[in-house]
């Protein structure tokens, strides 16, 4: 059975809806405490949003040194899928599992509203359920979401198709992110970080299921890698 580990750092606040979104696709989902050194058998790791360690120093800067991050690093090195959402994205950048960094929003305001995004990379364990170029609307809620990277890194991300999610236009860009980048992946396509919150758009009760694809993709990824059992 697909097992999804949802990391918990002090100050994280989106773990419950992330766990629920994982369970919604039939996965066994469990929390992994930041002091744990094992992921509890998780096939997929999700680092949820929030304010780990109060965003002290820089968003994600302290969480990166938590014991659990060594296990996440090993999991990623072995090709295991990792999704970082919002603060999770910031943590993945600080941990150098993804390039670039997230800076203060260009208008200094914390922004919490739905934004239009385009799925530009469907070859990941988190986006295969979408169609390339599909427009979706996802909630965002962050004060430090402005993606920045040096020119060479930006060029590399574009050339290698590593921009997974992009704000639909300059007008939709809520934070001044370079190249309207809302989410990227590592070179292998196994580690993905995004600023929007798909877990908040997985239940018709809250008005949108545009984010459900991220979790359906995980279930599809898992199903595809299972050996086909003999039918004799």
């Amino acid at each position: 059975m697909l097992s999804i580990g949802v990391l918990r750092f002090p100050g994280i606040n989106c773990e419950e809806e992330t766990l629920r979104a994982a369970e919604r696709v039939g996965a066994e989902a469990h929390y992994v405490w930041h002091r744990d050194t094992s992921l509890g058998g998780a096939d997929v790791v999700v680092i949820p949003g929030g304010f780990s360690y109060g965003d002290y120093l820089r968003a994600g800067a302290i969480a990166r040194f938590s014991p659990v991050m060594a296990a996440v690093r090993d999991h990623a090195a072995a090709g295991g899928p990792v999704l970082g959402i919002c603060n999770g994205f910031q943590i993945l950048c600080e941990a150098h599992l993804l390039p670039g960094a997230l800076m203060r929003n260009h208008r200094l305001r914390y922004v919490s509203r739905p934004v239009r995004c385009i799925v530009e990379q469907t070859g990941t364990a988190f986006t295969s359920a979408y169609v390339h170029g599909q427009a979706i609307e996802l909630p965002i809620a962050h004060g430090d979401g402005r993606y920045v990277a040096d020119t060479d890194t930006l060029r590399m991300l574009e050339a290698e198709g590593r921009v997974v999610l992009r704000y639909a236009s300059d007008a939709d860009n809520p934070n001044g992110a370079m190249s309207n980048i809302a989410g990227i992946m590592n070179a292998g396509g196994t580690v993905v970080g995004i600023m929007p919150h798909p877990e908040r758009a997985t239940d018709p009760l809250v008005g949108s299921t545009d984010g459900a694809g991220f979790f359906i993709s995980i279930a599809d990824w898992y199903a595809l890698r299972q050996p086909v059992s003999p039918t004799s």
Partner: protein
Amino acid sequence: MTFRVLVRVMPRQGLLDPQGQAVEHALSTLGYPPLQSVRVGRAIEIGMEAADAAEAEARARDMCERVLANPVMEDFHVSVEVS
């Protein structure tokens, strides 16, 4: 010897610094003559024992590279004085 190390972390030149812009706007609202630039960063003060100033500075620079600054978006400056 005991040293007082002051680490100054600033947003990298060329990257948008909205805090600096907001402060610059506030200062111009107060009627100051036009300013060349205003940038907002962070100062970190560290007290430490070290054999000499060079050792204290080397240790502080290592701290900056590993955690106190993020080279993607920030530059840092270290100054050391005997306390």
